[in-house]
């Protein structure tokens, strides 16, 4: 079992029982049983290690009900999310697969994305953007931005190419990064996807990847080097690149944007990859813009509920979590909820519509564009 690798962490939680991970866990708050919190899952992992528990369809649901937001990790010193992902992988290996995850992954294998969208429409967003096939920096689009929020991705690409940056784009040849596969425990599929991607990057001469999707960013920056010893590409999130370009005065936000906004830290960017300051630096460089922080921000930011395969398998739970975050955003009095994650944006969009919220959802690159 994969969880055997984490035996020490699992027994450490078993003997600590501090429970600091529990009360703010977004899924636990919705479901109410200890088993949905991280410390509950650590006892489940112990149960599987000792053979007290058997894998089952019901157990799969419990283990899959986690947005992998890493709130538990920030309140702990153990490898919480890794253990939950290992638990999922063990259940998949034991033959228990969530139908929605499986369907999404089959779609990825067929069309390169989980959204039932044709492969040849992946690059529609990129029409007329002056990408350069010879550039060694790749703007990796991901699946969600091109199919769900193509305009925002286009804005990001225009901003970067607009200052003369040479970027490559794989267009229709680009393939999903494999995040959904890894996080839901479909490890064999993830390994195949990773190999395929690495080969495509090699052929295109990619030395650096820039991406706007925090899920893709985390997978490339943190997981590819762990799973693929031949992966040596430098990876940067778009906010890191843009913050640097602002420092170097290559991007100059000069036009005032007289709005009050709040910023949502995507879990995979903030808590997972610790990119907290760069988005704020970008927002702070825009004249006239007032950033009002939500009650929970930076490492304490509440999750949108969509990560870790939740959006695919448990959309009703995911949106309830997003609705709470939208309320928190509204409480700041901000006109706009700004973030930089297409998965969060997808879920917030639903939550805003379901609750008739007046707050406007805007991608960070879009608001930056207004100032340039």
């Amino acid at each position, binding site marked *: 079992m994969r969880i055997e690798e984490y035996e*020490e962490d699992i027994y*450490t939680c078993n003997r600590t029982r*501090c*429970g600091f991970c529990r009360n703010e866990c977004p899924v636990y708050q919705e479901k109410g049983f*200890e088993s949905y919190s991280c410390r509950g899952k650590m006892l489940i992992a112990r*149960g599987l290690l000792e053979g007290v528990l058997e894998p089952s369809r019901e157990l799969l649901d419990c283990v899959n009900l986690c947005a992998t937001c890493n709130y538990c990790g920030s309140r702990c010193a153990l490898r919480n999310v890794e253990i939950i992902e290992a638990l999922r992988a063990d259940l998949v290996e034991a033959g228990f697969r969530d139908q929605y995850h499986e369907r999404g992954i089959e779609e990825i294998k067929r069309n390169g994305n989980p959204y039932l969208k044709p492969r040849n429409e992946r690059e529609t967003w990129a029409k007329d953007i002056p990408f350069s096939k010879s550039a060694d920096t790749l703007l990796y689009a991901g699946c969600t931005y091109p199919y769900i929020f193509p305009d925002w991705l286009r804005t990001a690409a225009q901003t970067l190419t607009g200052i003369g940056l040479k970027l490559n784009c794989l267009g229709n040849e680009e393939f999903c990064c494999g995040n959904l596969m890894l996080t839901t425990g479909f490890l064999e599929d993830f390994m195949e996807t990773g190999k395929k991607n690495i080969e495509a990057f090699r052929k295109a001469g990619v030395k650096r990847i820039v991406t706007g999707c925090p899920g893709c960013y985390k997978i490339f920056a943190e997981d590819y080097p762990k799973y693929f010893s031949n992966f040596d590409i430098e990876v940067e999130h778009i906010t890191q690149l843009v913050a640097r370009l602002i420092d170097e005065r290559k991007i100059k936000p000069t036009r005032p944007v007289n709005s009050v906004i709040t910023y949502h830290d995507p879990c995979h960017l903030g808590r997972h990859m610790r990119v907290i300051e760069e988005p704020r630096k970008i927002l702070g460089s825009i004249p006239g813009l007032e950033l009002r922080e939500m009650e929970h921000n930076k490492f304490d930011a509440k999750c949108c509920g969509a990560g870790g395969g939740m959006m695919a398998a448990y959309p009703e739970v995911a949106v309830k979590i997003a609705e709470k975050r939208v309320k928190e955003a509204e409480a700041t009095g901000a006109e706009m909820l700004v973030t930089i994650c297409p998965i969060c944006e997808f879920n917030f969009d639903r939550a805003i519509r379901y609750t008739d919220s007046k707050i406007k959802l805007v991608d960070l690159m879009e608001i930056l564009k207004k100032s340039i």
Partner: protein
Amino acid sequence: MVLEIQKAAEEIAQKIGEEKVSTEKFHRIAYSRDWSPRNAKEAQLPDVVVVPSTTEEVAEVVKIAYKYRIPIVPFAGGTGMGGGVSPIKGGITVDTKGLNKILEIDKENLTVTTQVGITILALNQELEKHGLWWPHDPESKPASTVGAAISCDNDSTFGIKYGKLGDYLLNAVLVTGTGEILRLGHRKALCTSSGYKLHWLLIGAEGTLGIVTEATLKVFPKPQTRKVEAVVFKSISEAINGLKRLLQAGLSIESAHINCKRRLGFYTHAYREKYKREPDIPEWAEALLFVSFNGDEEVVKFSHEYALKILEEFGGQKVKEKEIIDGWWTSKHTLKFEPFKQKWPDSQRKKKFGAADLGIPIGRIEEAYQKFLKIAEKNKMEVLGMCVYNERPNRISPSISFAVFVDDTDPDEVKRFYKYVEEMSKMAVDLEGTMSTYIGDGDRLGGFNKYEHGEALKYMKKIKEVFDPQNIMNPGKKFESCWIELGK
């Protein structure tokens, strides 16, 4: 699963909703232990878990359990050190954290009325919005609840100023062992001479009389400022005498904790690890007193300076390392650990903490400390150290943690730990003290606590019978022990 339990689970689901009841093993295993030292691979599972969200739902659950004579184990934060939530006789675990609504914040009368499943931290976050504060402050506050504080009578960082639950609890709603809903206490009045103070019986009852579902608590306006200080002494007695003198002088002290040399070593070790240099602590330091003062800035400034002057007269020396003071305050009160580096898991990777929690008369603490070292050595337990908390307002009121490390992967060591607890508890009673001051009897001291209570234990059992005639409320706790031979 036996038929009665299956039937009870079905009936409960009908009454309170299917989504609030589970017999799934993976849900049940998540309720199999608390923080008490027990074998690493031990798992005591309840047969059913329920997560009610109102007093009425709790009453429905208990009525059904009463009908089938099924044990009920109330569960809250699950951070206790006494095995109070271990379902040692199976039955229905009632997770009370679903009862987490604040019912009324009364600024005028300085009270809060709340369902008791709310965590202490969450309650204070809400109170803060109104400029109020419930100063009951255990280190477990992000996880432990108001109900757990009532039921376990646990300690507070600020006990020497604000006391414990007996000083806060004005009123409570209890679901008895028959499922009856009772209101106990004196509403929002701060004292009463009418009737018996039955609500006080709930403090430390560990769910053996029923399930507390709502409470009215005394709260305070949040003080403006605070000063935290640390002073080392050549002996524990000098630290105690210094503290005595501070109170005699009329100072209002917010917190006062005296640590032995070994506990001091805990802080200096953390300092060395973090800052890679030797802390400036004198060799002769045998005791470390942490104190804090709160209130208006001028009052705090005066109290702090005056206190230092007095403590110096008792041989005290101010700790120069601000980081040691900050480190203590972080682990005691703010809990603002560096993200991803919370100290509890890392400090228990190999062995866990275990403690005897004794009340010792103030003049005999030095003697108790020496006996502690001997008893720990005799039982081959590695000493972590002694910390004297003070838990009643404006007096030295020791609630003492005599802590050791326990290797929970070694069943023999776990047994030796409970032998250590037994001998320490006897020692406390022999010194005219008490066996437990913040953990409770749990599944440790029951039966054996006759050594402390004598024939009074019979009366306690009779009181339990009045509230819980079928002995279904947390059976196996308080009157029986899993660990100590004399309680079996």
